[in-house]
């Protein structure tokens, strides 16, 4: 098998799959060369990821990387995820063959976008007075 056991396990049993209602941050990334598309939803508490979910259209490695990454980033600080390196997602999925490196790239880009979105929403929330005051 050319894929790692971790990758196959995540492909067989994807964790945190599906959309999230009222997320605190959403990010999307597309890898145009192969049309892989990943959307990541974040629930944030105290500046850290409480829950992450994903939706992915793509090959097996991209689906597996999405699943592994949502586990990886649970508990992580948003400011850390804004700069999430592709390599961390690749490691989380147990490595990728060179011709599937894009799987980690598309997923980490979606996470960075979701983290930026969550930071922006939080800033906006702080600037705006709370409802009812």
């Amino acid at each position, binding site marked *: 098998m050319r894929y790692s056991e971790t990758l196959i396990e995540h492909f067989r049993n994807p964790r945190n799959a*599906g959309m999230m209602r009222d997320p605190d941050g959403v990010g999307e990334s597309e890898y145009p060369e192969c*049309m892989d598309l990943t959307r990541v939803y974040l629930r944030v508490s105290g500046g850290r990821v409480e829950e992450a979910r994903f939706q992915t259209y*793509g090959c097996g490695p991209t689906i597996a990387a999405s699943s592994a990454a949502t586990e990886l980033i649970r508990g992580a600080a948003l400011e850390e995820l804004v700069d999430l390196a592709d390599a961390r997602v690749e490691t989380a999925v147990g490595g990728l063959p060179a*011709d599937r490196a*894009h799987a980690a790239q598309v997923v980490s880009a979606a996470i960075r976008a979701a983290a930026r979105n969550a930071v922006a929403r939080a800033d906006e929330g702080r600037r705006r007075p709370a409802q009812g005051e």
Partner: protein
Amino acid sequence: MNRRVYLDHNASTPVHPEVVEAMLPYFAERFGNPSSIHGFGREAREGLDSARERIARFLRVSKDEIVFTSGGTESDNLAIKGVAAARGRGHIVTSAVEHHAVLRTCAALEGQGFSVTVVPADGYGMVDPDDVQRALRPDTILVSIMHANSEVGTIQPVGAIGALTRARGIPFHVDGVQTFGKLPVDLDALGIDLFSFSGHKIYGPKGAAGLYIRKGIRMASVQHGGEHERRRRAGTENVPGIVGLGKAVEVRERDMAVEEGRVRALRDRLWEGLSARVPEVRLNGHPTERLPGTCNVCFRHIESESIVLGLDLKGIGVSAGSACTSGNVEPSHVLLAMGIPLDWAMGTVRCSVGRGTTAEDIDYVVDSVEPLAGKLRSLSPARV
């Protein structure tokens, strides 16, 4: 759990036990070089000659018209480059749904000053003989149209095209790799002058194939060296492989007619199962003029490779219609030529049934695809 189902017979087939048995003596006992004049060489030559005769009889042609090659790709290269080199210049007509062995060979010749017209195909992947007729020019030196498409299985109207080329004295090459030994082929009636065929698609070994060259067709050598194959293809023949190819043809001659009906029924059972149980699927290729074993299916909003991987984990071997290489997806040129929308084409899977396939295998595949397609779609943001 440990069930294994092979549904990729258009890619390759398991070597038939009778073929293996026929080949074995030619590795260590009758190992001689068929060009040698001593007894060791003569033994190998006998194996080569009888394979050539068997194949010539099967194709109803003369044995001098058969040239052995290393594979379908080499046969296509020899046919096209051989005719082109003999003429030196001119115009070639081919189609958008050909195998890369034909399309890229024509493109290479275009770079060398030949002109090439690529005729389109319709939504079933079928070429219109009228388009071929319109493409013909006074300087046309070759028409190359495949017999059946390896991806979607559509069988081309080669007889109608052969009538056009024959009336004008233009050599007609047909890549018959997917029909040879699967369907009856009458080269003369179809007006075919050059016909590529291969062993490993019909339960023969890899590395043994051939090209029929009608007597009188002007050809130049593409590969230079010794005097092998009547100076049309230099290089010591792959004797064990060719003996296997000959045996494979003998077995096909015996079993082909019965197997065709059985394989066709299994193919239809597969499509009926998939279309009844999986939403948003479509069958590619011609509804009737199609290879008996080929079932090419699009799953909308699913990516081909994820289905192939998911089925692989269930022990099922099928092939992806859109190949992702180095992070670049190349949707099949055949599906694009057929005008299949990208959101469907990206989720194309080819299943090809063969002699070892059973009804239980087909049911297992349908049972496996249904939940897999549901799961992959549930993961996808594209499903709106």
